[in-house]
């Protein structure tokens, strides 16, 4: 999807804000959300790309306002609600009861998709070495990035679409295709390439001299450059 998360090349965000003596987490809740997500990642409830896509589905204004771990909290709540593990209504009721100082919280209703059966569990990592693939491109090949604009998850950044570059590395490992895995419609294992772009190709006259941009791109994002 074309979203605010796909920030490469945008103006308007000012200087990079560097903090001195920065803690690992800036508030206790940030650490809890981070670590809870790590645990949930291992449960088979969802996969990495689903998590990323859930964040992308935030309204752009919320995305910009809620901060890094605020986005993770948002995604956690939405995924758990959608997957019938913990309903949003249950969280809201708990918060209401806390606010009202109820001595004993309501019992959680038993109907939920938990625990998951082995068949229901979704696999995590992105490498699929057991499904070997033959890459279509080789180091040195000139490739053009396809102009894809589908509404789902993608790792194809907007700023390279339609642009030509050179394959600088072939990660011949069999990797999942995020665009389909995020929607649980198949792993579609394929090669991931590192493609080198001249800055001029991406940014025209606004490019800084003597800079190259390297981006890792799935095979489905690329075609042979015909020009």
């Amino acid at each position, binding site marked *: 999807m074309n979203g605010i*998360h796909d920030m*490469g090349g945008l103006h308007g*965000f*000012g*200087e*990079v*804000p*560097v*903090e001195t003596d*920065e803690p*690992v*987490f*800036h*508030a206790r*809740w940030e650490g*809890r*959300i*981070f*670590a*809870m997500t*790590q*645990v*949930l990642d291992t*449960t088979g409830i969802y996969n990495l790309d689903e998590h*990323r896509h859930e*964040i992308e589905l935030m309204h752009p204004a919320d995305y910009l*306002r*809620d901060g*890094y*771990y605020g986005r993770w*909290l948002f995604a956690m*709540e939405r995924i*758990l609600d959608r997957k019938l*593990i*913990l309903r949003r209504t*249950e*969280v809201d009721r*708990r*918060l209401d009861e806390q606010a009202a100082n109820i001595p004993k919280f309501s019992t959680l209703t038993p109907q*939920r998709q*938990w625990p998951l059966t082995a068949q229901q569990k979704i696999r995590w*990592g*992105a*490498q699929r070495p057991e499904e070997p693939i033959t890459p279509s491109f080789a180091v040195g090949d000139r490739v053009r990035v396809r102009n894809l604009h589908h509404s789902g998850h993608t*790792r194809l*950044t907007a*700023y390279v679409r339609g642009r030509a570059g050179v394959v600088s590395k072939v*990660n011949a490992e069999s*990797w999942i295709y*995020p665009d389909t895995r995020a929607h649980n419609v198949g792993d579609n294992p394929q090669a*991931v390439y590192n493609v080198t772009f001249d800055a001029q190709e991406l*940014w025209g006259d606004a490019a*800084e001299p*003597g*800079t190259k*941009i*390297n*981006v*890792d*791109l799935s095979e489905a994002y690329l075609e042979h450059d015909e020009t």
Partner: protein
Amino acid sequence: MTNHDTDNHDHDHDHAHHHRHADSERPGHSHAPTKPWQATRAEAVEALLHELGVIDSARVDEIVQHYEEKVGPKTGARVVARAWTDPAFKQRLLADGLAACAELGIGGPETELLHVVENTDNVHNVIVCTLCSCYPWPVLGLPPAWYKSSAYRSRLVREPRTVLAEMGLSLAPQVEIRVWDSVSEIRYLVLPQRPAGTENMSEDELAALVRRNAMIGVAKVAAPEVPS
């Protein structure tokens, strides 16, 4: 316009705003410090997930502790110092970063493949993830707030030389900058140049010189201060 750009942590619900001043005109609007809504909701979600047996809060404690205390840039610094002092290791590191790190007992989630990119007199490497904030956690710990900021994510791929200069690293025009946008599952680590004047230092002393920013590529490793 204040601190929007930090875009990372602990934002107040109706956070900093150019018209913030007008708040003082709003009756009934208190500025008393309050618990952020994220903290309130995070606690409720954790409590409920723990009650349901989906997560174990003790395990959450352990993970927080791991990332606060056990893993961080010092891990990466060990890798760099070893590469500086052991040419064979460096060769293995550049060939297969993850396997070489495993030799030192380093590895973990969010890094399925690690490419180590080496700075030279003519080439400077720098890492970003424009789409979210991918980062080699097992080697560098969790990323700093600026790495996750909208400003860094948006600007580095378009004007790396300017961004690096703003952050204190002015590179000569003849130095080629290579930006690595790690949007797939491959993670990157910059192998900085070993500074002059460190010929007689031990691996541990060298590791102590290597800071996080040099391994992301927004700084060089500073030469040790000469005792006066």
